[in-house]
């Protein structure tokens, strides 16, 4: 395999890895809060409020229990 082919293969692998990372980030649970039409903030992963709200969401959505940082 020529260095050029190796480079192209490496490029493809990086693209696939980046796509998988993006997909994982998009599917990661998150809790976002906005008070009084202000700036929205994402609650920290593993914070008690975020975990409680996520657990409530899972109850309503009929999903198995899991925490944000799981």
């Amino acid at each position, binding site marked *: 395999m020529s260095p050029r082919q190796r480079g192209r293969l490496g490029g493809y692998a990086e693209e696939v890895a980046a796509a998988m990372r993006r997909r994982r980030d998009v*599917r990661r*649970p*998150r*809790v*976002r*809060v*906005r*008070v*009084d*039409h202000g700036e*929205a903030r994402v609650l920290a992963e593993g914070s008690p*409020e975020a975990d*409680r*709200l*996520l657990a*409530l*969401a*899972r*109850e*309503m*959505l*009929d*999903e198995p229990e*899991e925490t944000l940082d799981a």
Partner: protein
Amino acid sequence: MLTRMAATAHDLALRYLLELSADIRGALLMDRGGDLVASAGLLPPEELAETGRRIVREVSGLAPDGDQTVEVDVFAGRGALFVLAEDAHVMVCTTNRSVNPGLIFYDMHAVLRDIDRAAAAEERREASHGQREAAGSGA
């Protein structure tokens, strides 16, 4: 204000919300005290009132002043939960994951405004009815 409005009007409002957005699977309406006012759509029937009360408690904790408008969206593995606390009500919706949160909140705000407007109109109607009765008995 809530008790002066027929319960069916709240149910109808939630059904209208489900018609507004095909992405919304189910909806709950509570007062700020956490009491369940109405529900519609696909929701787990067990302990719905208690779950609603816990959601209101959590949202109240995020707004220390009490009567502030609070929007919360929670994206879980297979779906999303949206909570909107505004004026006298707290509305909760469940959707699939592939939704635009801004659009869901837009529909929720619209329906909550309609509910508040209907309750205010009902209150005015009852007040004018009471005044007419008082004037009639005084004559």
